[in-house]
């Protein structure tokens, strides 16, 4: 009985770890991936997004979004190739077991403004 319980626990734990370690991009539902940024290309929204980024994101990802203390750069190929919808999904949901908090309590408009700003960084590369 004890052996069965231990085996079941190990199986559950390992499957949780495998699921948790897979890339967040693979977890984004199709409908979220296809979402369109209502502020795409809007310079004023990008300026607002820069201020929100400095207040909330720069502490981990760095003022230049290059990443700090092992936290990921937001100028990476992965972010460049992600759709706006995918970035919106990771901002809303976070990756709690990988250190990225959920930003769902930040209004959705402000999350889109951050994405608009990130796009300007990616075109500056």
């Amino acid at each position: 009985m004890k052996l069965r319980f231990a085996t079941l626990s190990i199986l559950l734990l390992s499957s949780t770890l495998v699921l948790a370690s897979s890339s967040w991009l693979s977890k984004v539902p199709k409908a979220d991936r296809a979402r369109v940024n209502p502020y795409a290309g809007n310079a004023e929204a990008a300026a607002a997004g820069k201020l929100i980024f400095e207040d909330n994101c720069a502490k981990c990802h760095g003022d230049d979004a290059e990443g700090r203390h092992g936290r990921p750069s937001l100028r990476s190929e992965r972010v460049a190739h992600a759709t706006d919808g995918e970035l919106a999904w990771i901002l809303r949901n976070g990756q709690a077991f990988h250190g990225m908090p959920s930003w769902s309590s930040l209004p959705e408009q402000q999350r889109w403004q951050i994405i608009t700003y990130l796009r300007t960084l990616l075109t500056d590369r």
Partner: protein
Amino acid sequence: MSVSVQLCAGLAPSCVLKVPRSSFFSRRSGPTLLGLLLVLATLAVSLPHAALAQEPPYFVAYSSALEEPGNLEIAFKGLTASPKNANAFMSHTLELEYGATAWWTTELYLQGQSTVNDSTVFTGLRSENRFRFLPTEHWINPVLYVEYENISAADKSLLEIVGNDSISDLQPSNAELYGETEREIEGKLILSSNAKGWNFSENFIAEKNLSNEPWEFGYALATSRPLALAGSSRSCLFCRQNFTAGAELYGGLGTTQSFGLASTSHYAGPTVSFEVPHGPAISFSPQFGLNDNSAGVLWRFKVAYEIQQFRDWFRHNSFRGGSR
């Protein structure tokens, strides 16, 4: 009139500073708890790298928002009231909240109170942990809250209302109450939703005194919304996005022996917060008693300051030491 200072033994809730009847906060009362809290609050405000939190402006209810990993929030929570048939009082709570991970926030409260025509007492401490156990956002997001309290019966922070708590419990003098220590565990199920800029939070509270007393229950409901949902493109102090308004409703639900609304107290009121860009968040709420067991009005305020990536201060040192 003289000031008598009794022994303050560590963090035990038995530290009393007698305040003269003629003055509520006397110069002669020495380094009171209030003074200590003010020094700590001033120190927090003078620290660099502080910025906004994303927490709603609630005093009793919790939302699913946790402290961001590595951040340390230092907050001073105050409550003042003049209940009928009792002396006016002011409760002071120092709150240290740390984001251990993105799914775990841990917090320590140090509490005290000053009562007019009575004394200032240290009333004890609380240690709480909040765990977010679902990896993604849902329509309703659950958070589990576990707390241990070691507080005196003289505590007047009213950080939650449970069981048959009544404002008349606070009528006896501090001398009568402070020696009565309550060691309690408390659990909360926090449910929270974010939709179209609004936050809706519902808390269900169960508290157990570790002595042979029944479980006590309570609830807290709250909602809030920033005054503007989109950010401004220019840096500004009084932008509408920096203000959040909402409302709270909370109260007791009796005990396992007498579950229900009979002989319980309840409060409701508006709440507003102002987040100074790169500065503290200031919250204020008048909360009105809804029945005879409640105080007329509780005036609550909070000043919170977040030290961003406090953890990196130590990591930076390890980089210099060449450990990474």
